[in-house]
């Protein structure tokens, strides 16, 4: 497999003010009767980007995708694709293809004719169709299954046919609605990397819907976190994880400890926050809220250290507690530590060596502590 890392690192058209978005969603609202499924949503997606829409069930991801494909019309707002408004253009004239959540294979056609369907609609010569279908079958490793009908395939094979069919026309944009939803964990992880390779190889723009955050983090260049029809944050996976812009995003992606408190001092890019859990926090922050303003600090479990002795900077960014629960996951261990006021803090540590000489035990008194840039200050 090629190394994606080097290509990906230099790929950031969204940071370049000169680059033009390929898909532009402008203030789009979609209402079903009184219910607002998508609420004044704006997004830019760039050529060759792998873009993920992430959110809880019912937050409007599929609805947004269906508006891109042309199955739903926005109640208000506009979608621009490659400089052209999509308003009034029916699905069969849009240069986008979609891979459906349910695969939607044609039950009365073989794998081959399923894949050829879109090409036939374009009036492609027979020989070319046969060649392209052959390529697609090879791509998804289904050469042996060309003559089968969909109900003669396993779930994973069907998913590959759906993918091949949506890729056959080489669309400018491929929309994928929960493409890996029906696969088991191992196949899912394999396919994630296959999809990424494919997208790089063919140079396509992918918009993928998922409610699996790990999947979004693995595959996407950027992630849009959605909630109740709105986009809460659009950023790279690392930014979303390390610098969530709100309590919702911090809570939605991964595990997090949130300490609520009030700002007591602000100087040199650092804030001092008196928390309700009985210890002060000093945290780096570009913002400068007024003294007395409410603030919350979000800290990921892996950034919290667990020690027997208090650190030098105690009591700032450090507090005593008791080990309440230990979860051994193999690659790492998760500690639940109970503070004096009863609140439980999650900390995790990598098991870098096979056997620790003197491991932590239940009910042990310990200190938890973290650095001055370990967390992020949330405004709300």
């Amino acid at each position, binding site marked *: 497999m090629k190394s994606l890392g080097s290509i990906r690192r230099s790929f950031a058209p969204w940071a370049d003010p000169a680059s033009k978005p390929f898909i532009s969603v402008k203030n789009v609202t979609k209402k079903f009767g009184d219910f607002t499924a998508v609420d004044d949503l704006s997004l830019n997606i760039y050529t060759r980007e792998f873009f993920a829409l992430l959110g809880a069930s019912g937050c409007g991801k599929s609805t947004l995708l269906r508006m891109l494909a042309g*199955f739903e019309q926005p109640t208000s707002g506009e979608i621009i694709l490659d400089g052209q408004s999509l308003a009034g253009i029916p*699905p*069969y004239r849009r240069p986008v293809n979609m891979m459906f*959540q349910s695969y939607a294979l044609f*039950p009365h056609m073989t794998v081959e004719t399923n894949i050829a369907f*879109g090409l036939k609609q374009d009036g492609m010569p027979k020989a070319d169709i046969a060649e392209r279908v052959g390529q697609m079958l090879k791509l998804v490793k289904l050469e042996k299954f060309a003559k*089968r009908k969909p109900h*003669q395939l396993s779930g994973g094979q069907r998913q590959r046919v759906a993918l091949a*069919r*949506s890729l056959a026309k080489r669309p400018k944009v491929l929309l994928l609605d929960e493409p890996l939803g029906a696969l088991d964990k191992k196949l899912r992880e394999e396919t994630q990397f296959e999809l990424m390779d494919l997208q790089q190889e063919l140079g396509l723009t992918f918009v993928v819907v998922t409610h699996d955050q790990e999947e979004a983090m693995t595959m996407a260049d950027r992630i849009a976190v959605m909630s109740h029809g709105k986009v809460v944050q659009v950023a790279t996976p690392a930014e979303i994880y390390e610098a969530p812009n709100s309590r919702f995003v911090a809570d939605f992606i991964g595990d997090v400890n949130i300490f609520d408190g009030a700002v007591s001092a602000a100087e040199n890019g650092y804030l001092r926050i008196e928390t309700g859990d009985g210890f002060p926090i000093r945290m780096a922050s570009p913002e400068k809220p007024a003294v007395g303003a409410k603030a919350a600090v979000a800290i990921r479990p892996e950034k919290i250290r667990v020690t027997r002795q208090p650190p030098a900077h105690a009591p700032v960014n450090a507090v005593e507690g008791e080990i309440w629960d230990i979860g051994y996951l193999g690659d790492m261990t998760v500690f639940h530590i109970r503070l004096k006021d009863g609140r439980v803090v999650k900390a995790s540590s990598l098991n870098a060596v096979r056997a620790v000489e003197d491991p932590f035990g239940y009910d042990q008194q310990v200190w938890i502590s973290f650095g001055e840039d370990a967390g992020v200050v949330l405004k709300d």
Partner: protein
Amino acid sequence: MGNWSRFNIASIVLGFGFLYLPIVLLVIFSFNESKLVTVWAGFSTKWYAQLWHNQALLDAAWVTIRVALISATCATVLGTLAALALVRYTRFRGRMLFSGMVYAPLVMPEVITGLSLLLLFVAIGLDRGFWTITLAHITFTMCFVAVVVQSRLLSFDQSIEEAALDLGATPVRTFFAITLPVIAPAVFSGWVLAFTLSLDDLVISSFTTGPGATTLPMKIYSQVRLGVTPEINAICTILIGIVAIGVIVASVVTKQREAQRERDERAAFAQ
């Protein structure tokens, strides 16, 4: 079905006897040598042979078959479209009224359907005959087709139509390339149903007929008033045969497709 108790056997015999005894008698007596319908005088197929010389009866049969073919085909087209409209456009105004109107003929007394159609044809000055019968049959069989097709459409996964549109097929192409092939067995069953209903209709045909257009049931009915002949028994036996074959074919087609599907699925999981 484990225990064949006497009660079970008795109820089955009684039920089937009640349903089929008259028909069985009719079939048996169609092979009777004697001209007297109620006296058995040995086996013979002469009445079937005689049918071929009864020009009036043959004409009536020919009219009936033409009416049934044309009306079943038109009713299938219209009924399928009505079913599509009812299932797909769930939010149009007056949908309840429309669906009620499509299904009303199912429970409407045939006399009323026939009479109202007759009044309509008279009012618009249509010459009564072959085409008025055909039109009337389209009207009353269409709702049966609609019911059959609608029940299939309710379990139809609409995302495959969206997939076709997405791949560049126009709505019309999508209908013919995707929707129709998938619902074809139901459409075919609807056609067979409409065909058999049209074949043995008497009441509505009688109301809407005109000079020169006599269907087989009408012919049989008028002859029976002069006395039942073995010839009538013979033609009825043939009719029963056609209808039975139609019903059996329709159900076998459906069954076989299901069985095939199950086999295929088992094969897919076995690998």
